[in-house]
């Protein structure tokens, strides 16, 4: 098993948000985690990525047999955990290619692989950029600075393509995207999907799942998974709305 979340209780600022979450993810699988606002979707993403503001109260997260919660965010990343941000951060003064090469080389160093110099990396990046139809113009620009919402999300997927994570958590990657950007991002994710990795799609809306077909759908409400099923569950949810599952979480 790649990831096993067991009875996870976690929160922020002393407030418990996840109240006993269980999740199992294997390589080659795409899981969709859906839920209404405030259900704990973002908390789950942040806890898995290791955000310092979030606090784990109890439960465990095992990744490749290791205790994920013991690892610093950068260690998790080098071990293959990737989170695409809902709101990608702007890093002025640091070019996209510079940033990506550093990240790539850190990962390579960690795994005893070959680091790339700027010229070699540029060729590598050009190939990867095709995944999300990004032009070279974006390589020189500062990370996310002045990017449109869609460009930022594409840039997240580009980072995913470059870093080739084993576990990618896409946190509301579809939010704020117009239909064209959504298509590009989704197609990018589909190209990166393989039997060697797993993807967790965290989303409020079913729309993204029209483009990226999940193997499993989990519905999160009140900090717990309240319903699980195949991709058809997402459609049912779209039709009936979240009120349908809210009852199951014991919240109104």
């Amino acid at each position, binding site marked *: 098993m790649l990831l096993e979340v067991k009875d996870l209780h976690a929160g922020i600022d002393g407030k418990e948000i996840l109240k006993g979450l269980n999740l199992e993810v294997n390589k080659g699988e795409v899981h969709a985690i859906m839920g209404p606002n405030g259900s704990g979707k973002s908390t789950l993403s942040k806890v898995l990525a290791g955000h310092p503001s979030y606090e784990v109260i109890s439960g465990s997260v095992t990744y490749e047999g290791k205790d994920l919660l013991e690892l610093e965010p*950068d260690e998790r990343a*080098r071990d293959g955990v990737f989170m695409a941000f809902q709101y990608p*951060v702007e*890093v002025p*003064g*640091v070019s996209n290619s510079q940033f990506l090469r*550093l990240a790539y080389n850190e*990962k390579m160093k*960690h795994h005893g692989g070959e680091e790339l110099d700027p010229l070699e990396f540029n060729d590598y990046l050009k190939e990867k950029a095709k995944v999300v139809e990004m032009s070279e113009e974006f390589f020189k620009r500062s990370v996310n600075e002045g990017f449109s919402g869609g460009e930022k999300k594409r840039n997240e997927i580009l980072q995913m393509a470059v870093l080739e994570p084993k576990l990618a958590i896409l946190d509301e990657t579809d939010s704020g995207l117009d239909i064209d950007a959504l298509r590009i991002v989704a197609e990018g994710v589909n190209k990166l999907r393989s039997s060697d990795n797993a993807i967790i799609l965290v989303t409020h809306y079913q729309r993204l799942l029209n483009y990226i077909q999940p193997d499993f759908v989990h519905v999160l409400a009140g900090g717990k998974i309240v319903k699980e099923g195949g991709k058809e569950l997402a459609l049912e949810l779209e039709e009936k709305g979240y009120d349908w599952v809210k009852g199951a979480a014991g919240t109104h």
Partner: protein
Amino acid sequence: MSSVSTEKETHFSAAFREFVEAEGPSPMHKLRVDAFDAFKQLGFPHPKLEDWKYTNSAAIAKVDWKVIGEGTSTVSQEEADKLSGFNYRRSGFTALNLAFGDVAFVRIPKDESVEEPIEFDFGGEDGVAIFPHIVIVAEPGSKATVIEKYGSTAPGLTNAAVQIFVGENANITHYRVQKDSADAFHISTTEVTIGRDGRYDSTSVNLGGALSRHEIDVRFTAEGGEAWIDGLYMLSGSQHSDTHSVIDHTVPNCTSHQNYKGVLNDKSRGVFNGKVFVRENAHGTDAQQSNKNLLLSNDARVDTKPQLEIFNDDVKCSHGATVGQLEDEELFYLLTRGLPETLARNLLTYGFAEEIISKIGIESIKSELDGMVLNRLNAKI
């Protein structure tokens, strides 16, 4: 006046007598005497003066600096006239600069574009005071790039001044790089006037000096002028760096954009004091001012005071200053991409400084500064 400054006068008085004697008859003679008299009156600036509140020049005042200049006998009357426009009374330092000034005069002829940058390199010696004074006259329609570099390797005193006259439709790009050794003293004054539709674009990078101060005054003398006044101070150890600027919109329809950034580590101290005046008849003014500071240590300190004084309603003005640390969300973002924390912090700091450096249009200077910034961070990026 205290006894200490009287002794200094005596020390500099003897040096001044020798200096003017060596220089011989010069159109500058009277100006030098006047300037030296002003120095005697003003003495070294005292922290009780509002403009010198945060910067104590006592460490400079107590040294018997050796003056080795021989004067400038070739100054023409016209050049002397430009020099007399220098506000040497602003402080004891500017007065000393003009009294002992080693003058370089550059004229960029009308409508001429000078491709090669005009470069000045200065470096002080141990115990020696140098007084460079550069005058740049950009005649109408001319275009040039001026590079002013300071790189002393010993605890000397650099007391420099630059006067720039940007003529009608002229375009001057000015890079000032101060990378004196960390035990040197550096006082520098830049005075700029911008004529009709003239453009002045300056980037000032301050990395060196135990104690450094840069004063820059920019004044518009006719409509349509444009000024970009950017700077970076990056300090560590116990370095102290002070920037004082005055941007004076005395005429309508001029634009000034000022962006200064500070990166302060260890126990270093930064001072930014930026005054922007928009005078009564200066309608259509566009004046933006920003000073952002990044503190990398709890012991570092910065005193920033952006000031905007507007006497006209029909203007577009903004100003602001920030003092802060690296943003947690930015740091987390880089960590989630696998960058170790030290590298992530260095990269963010580099990015902060880079906004200023990246605008430098000369590749050799840009990459040198890039290297120096990285070196400061002990980083390989």
